């Protein structure tokens, strides 16, 4: 759904352009999107992610894992994992994105490269149900306690339905939709179309 180009990447002396060309030489032509001068997004096949990240960590200035998160693309039946790798000396970040299957959600752990990946992976396992084999603390409760439903950050988890089922409301409160409330109070015409 994204439009990939790197025409707006300045080729002359931009360290971002240099790292993109080095990645292309080494790993093949991944789609690249330059979001802003200090943020470059790469879409990478799942098999290439560990070699790419190890190479970035050991042989380039991209040494910090700033963030690791997941996006649930329910319509495409896929999870997108986003590794945000930063080069503190260049002040440039790479968003390395991979897609994993939603049914068999599993990705390789990057705990060996960055220590704090264990917490990010622990949270993703709890909130999305993505399994990272080899990562410590997989399945150890992190934020939730005694959770028995599906992982709550998945798109198909309905928080309102869960909430109505488990947390009763105070008697007297009817609904929360301001549109209905205002419509009832001021007449349907007074609000929105």
């Amino acid at each position: 759904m994204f439009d990939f180009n790197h025409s707006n990447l300045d080729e002359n002396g931009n360290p971002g352009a240099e790292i993109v060309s080095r990645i292309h030489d080494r790993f093949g032509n991944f789609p690249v999107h330059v979001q802003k001068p200090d943020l470059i997004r790469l879409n990478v096949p799942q098999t290439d992610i560990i070699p790419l990240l190890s190479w970035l960590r050991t042989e380039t200035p991209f040494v910090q894992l700033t963030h690791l998160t997941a996006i649930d693309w329910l319509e495409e039946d896929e999870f997108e994992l986003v590794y945000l790798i930063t080069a503190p000396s260049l002040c440039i970040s790479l968003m390395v994105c991979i897609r994993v299957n939603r049914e068999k959600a599993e990705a390789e752990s990057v705990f060996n490269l960055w220590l704090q990946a264990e917490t990010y992976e622990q949270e993703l396992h709890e909130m999305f149900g993505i399994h990272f084999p080899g990562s410590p603390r997989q399945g150890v409760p992190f934020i939730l306690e005694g959770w028995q439903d599906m992982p709550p950050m998945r798109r198909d988890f309905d928080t309102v339905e869960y909430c109505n089922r488990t947390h009763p409301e105070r008697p007297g409160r009817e609904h929360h939709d301001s549109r209905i409330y205002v419509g009832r109070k001021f007449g349907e015409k007074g609000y929105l179309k």
Partner: protein
Amino acid sequence: MRKFDPDRPWDLTTLPTTMAPKGSKPHAPTDDRCFLGAGDVPAAPKLQEAVATIKNWFRASSLNVLAFGTGCGAIELRPLSTSRFDMSRFGISGAPSPRQANVFIISGYLSTKTLKRVIRSYEQMPNPKWVVALGSCTINGGMYWDSYNTIKVLDLYMPVDVYITGCMPRPEALIAGFDYLMQDIKKGEANGWHHYLENLEWYRDNQKKVITDWDLPNYSW
């Protein structure tokens, strides 16, 4: 509990709350044996009343707030104790341990994980004890009405003596809430703790509905 006053509809402490049915079996002694020196009460009714009044006055004048910041409202408790708002002039001070505290401020939303610790801390506090609930999220969920992890109505799980509205309530609102609480204590109407002991089974049932991995004892002494 205060009666609802139609002339003061803004007074949220008078809102009808969800109360437990009468007649549940108490698990803990609910009589005066809970208090230190309770055996010395004289028998004459008038004198007994006078002693109770004096006792309530003492209780209202020394409120010890448990140091448990359960939500965002905790950030206004520290300014409340510094020289600008100075809660010490009302006889309110902090207590580090539940064993030394008699006021529990529920400062905002409660996630189910915190609710378990709150119940345990609340039961460890010696009687008589009072609960002050801060913020709209304790009253009806507030802005977290559709969150899967926070409870909506606090008084289903523990008795609340004073609700303070706002998100978040100012320190002045907190002082006003404490003022209500003191008046109620002096009148002998702040009996939420008594209600909790009388209806422990009903509260326990409600608590077990949201806390799925229940491993607390029957009553944390």
